[in-house]
């Protein structure tokens, strides 16, 4: 296992330690060592934005802590939902008196732990509402859309929720905008190699050289098919089509495109892939309002990319364009 680590069982602890030191200009630790917050959180009179999930997805989740973005994050073990107590503490750390929006991804563990955290909060007098991201198209058929996993579309959900909250919206308005954002978001991933959990020391599954796995999940959950590795143009064609058909996206739509590497895919390849996606979208007459290309939501050292499309209306556009200053996503007002 070619990894720069110390004790494999302590990777999350040490990563969090390094992360807090590296970004002390933007984030602070809290009494719960696994809960990190935006330095100025809780922001008085602003709806708090909370998320969280298993580790191994850097810069998600804590890389999105910051101004007009996420206020507090619960940091789980590698690929494992944070315990209820962490979500509880994160919600408390984010509460500025106007309620807290917990915007997270649809995984069994996260669902249970957030649910329990909210129960634990019953006596604290904090109003909490949730949006559960389910943007990963291949993870379940449209007829069971509520079973779909949340993937990189979560970033746009946080961006929208964070901007809306910063604009002074109420908890219900923030929740409605974040929900609208995820309802208009569709994602799909492709894997070209497995990933290795540091504590396990070897990959948990195989993708043979010369093959790729379409629809792979953020933790290596198996996709819809394993096929021969194809040129970027064919990969992009397949993935873009699945995403376009599902919402569906239509000619004239304004969209955000987010291409994220899965951890071990060089930017070179990500831009070549994006180039192909852009050609397809342009040919279909979609307007790309904003593009993101980079390692935004990863799966340890997996090779591959995810594609995320968000269909915009005016409200979502304002939120996407809104200034923000988090670690992994910084935007000046256009």
């Amino acid at each position, binding site marked *: 296992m070619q990894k720069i680590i110390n004790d494999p*069982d302590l990777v999350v602890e040490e990563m969090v330690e390094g992360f807090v030191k590296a970004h002390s200009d933007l984030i602070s630790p809290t009494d719960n060592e696994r809960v990190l917050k935006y330095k100025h959180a809780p922001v008085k009179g602003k709806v708090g934005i909370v998320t969280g999930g298993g580790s191994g997805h850097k810069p998600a989740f804590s890389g999105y802590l910051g101004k007009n973005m996420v206020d507090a994050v619960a940091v789980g*073990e590698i690929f494992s939902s944070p315990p209820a107590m*962490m979500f509880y503490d994160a919600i408390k750390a984010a509460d500025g008196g106007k309620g807290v929006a917990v915007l997270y991804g649809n995984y069994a*563990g996260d669902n249970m732990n957030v649910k329990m955290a909210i129960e634990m909060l019953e006596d604290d007098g904090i109003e909490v509402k949730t949006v559960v991201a389910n943007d990963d198209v291949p993870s379940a058929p449209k007829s069971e859309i509520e079973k779909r996993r949340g993937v990189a579309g979560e970033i746009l959900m946080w961006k929208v929720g964070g901007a809306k909250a910063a604009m002074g919206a109420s908890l219900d308005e923030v929740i409605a905008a974040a929900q609208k954002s995820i309802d208009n978001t569709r994602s799909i991933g492709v894997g070209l190699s497995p990933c290795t959990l540091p504590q*396990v020391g070897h990959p*948990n599954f195989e993708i043979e050289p010369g093959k790729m796995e379409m629809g792979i*999940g953020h933790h290596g959950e198996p996709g819809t098919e394993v096929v021969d590795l194809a040129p970027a143009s064919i990969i992009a064609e397949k993935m873009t089509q699945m995403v376009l058909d599902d919402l569906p996206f239509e000619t004239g739509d304004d969209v955000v495109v987010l291409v994220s590497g899965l951890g071990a895919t060089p930017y070179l390849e990500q831009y070549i892939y994006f180039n192909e996606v852009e050609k397809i979208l342009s040919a279909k007459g979609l307007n790309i309002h904003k593009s993101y290309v980079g390692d935004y939501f990863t799966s340890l050292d997996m090779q591959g990319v995810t594609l995320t499309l968000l269909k915009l209306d005016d409200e979502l556009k304002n939120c996407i364009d809104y200034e923000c200053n988090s670690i992994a996503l910084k935007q000046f007002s256009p």
Partner: protein
Amino acid sequence: MSGFSNDSGKKIVDNIIQVIQENRQYLSDIDGKIGDGDHGINMSKGFTLCQQELESNPGNMSHGFGVLSKILMTKIGGSMGPLYGMFFKALSKESEGEPEINEAVVRGMFNGAVNKLSVISPAKKGDKTLMDALLPALDALNNSLDGGDGLTIALKNMKKAAESGRDKTIGMQAKLGRSARLGERSIGVLDAGATSCALILGTFADTATDLIN
């Protein structure tokens, strides 16, 4: 004698911790086939933290299960934190204050555990989860005790039912958790949670039997 003392029952907690530690790699390997390969890691980490806390803060069986439950819920997370957290919380609560752990207490403990779990998990029999070890085990325990078998025999039946329930998960298609997304491809291998659950129930039964004899 048909029971054991809550104090001596701490041995059950110790042995459960040990069996999970010993099966760390095995449980992860099983989880790796249709899940994300961390079940053994998660479990072992929580149970080891509990072991450490119990060294400085020892107590009887109810206390041990209580500590385990608290640690799973505050430190472990995943699916296992809340699920086993609730499970051990019930084992603790239902035996708390009982100096003698007898038939009635044991029955209350496991019935309570299943009730608690049902609150947070929608898992039914056949969904390929730890419930597929737990539910048949509880039925066997209840039936055996109802039939007047006595605690040691009932525990033996509970263990046997947990193990055969675990083995039946091989033929099942996962309906919940990460593996559910695999559809038919989840058939053919053990469920990790059912495997750890059978280990826990089996260790409970064996150790309690030793304590009774």
